[in-house]
């Protein structure tokens, strides 16, 4: 290798622009923000849910007992709707990372599947919340 002046090599390095972040980088930042925000919200929801489960197990787990507590319970409905929303955001983003890293699956097709899972969780979750409220 013929010799090059140190200053020439240094200049080459300095002239290298940082490669522009991928086209999806900004969206990925927002996915991260959504994941953490939904996580914080879910922390509260899950604590309430766990407490409710433990209470329910002690005070009767029959269909009648459960529905007695949830039917017409507007606050409960609001809680479960918020809970379902948070899950519909949180779970698909987590599954997306898993698929990318362990299945090597990347790109638009994965994003579509993940969006579909989010929609399905949202719809069926709302249905479940309504089912015990109505």
């Amino acid at each position, binding site marked *: 290798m013929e010799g090059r002046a140190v200053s020439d090599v240094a200049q080459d390095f300095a002239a290298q622009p940082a490669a522009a972040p991928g086209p999806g980088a900004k969206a990925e930042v927002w996915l991260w923000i959504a994941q953490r925000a939904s996580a914080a919200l879910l922390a509260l929801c899950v604590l309430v849910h766990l407490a409710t489960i433990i209470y329910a197990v002690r005070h009767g787990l029959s269909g009648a007992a459960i529905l007695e507590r949830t039917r017409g319970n507007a606050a409960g409905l609001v809680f479960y709707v918020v809970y379902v929303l948070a899950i519909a955001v949180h779970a698909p983003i987590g599954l997306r990372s898993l698929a990318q890293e362990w299945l090597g699956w990347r790109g638009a097709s994965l994003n579509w599947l993940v969006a579909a899972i989010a929609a399905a969780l949202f719809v069926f*979750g709302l249905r*479940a919340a309504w089912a015990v409220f109505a």
Partner: protein
Amino acid sequence: MKNDYRARNHPAWWAFLVHRLSGLALSVFLPFHFWALGQALQGEARLDSLLRWTEQPLVKFAEVMLVLLLAAHLSGGLRLLALEFLPWRDWQKSLLAWAAGAALAAGLAFALLL
């Protein structure tokens, strides 16, 4: 060259694995959960017969596992939020211990109350 289990054999890595696998398991469980609750649309009796099905020991065991998984994912997640948002301190390693303890406690509470 690829890393194997020897490179991964440290507590924080196990915490990651538990967190990811518990999240996956919960995601798989959720559709069933929503379906089961949705059965209430067909009336109280339908929900009741479903709940009687869950009285089986194997199902009860699965329920304990699910509560454990949920508690583990929650406490692991709180640990991650602390690591990512709070100033870096050396006690972050013991966060793992607290998280594991909290998860176990919740699971035990559930199991004992069954």
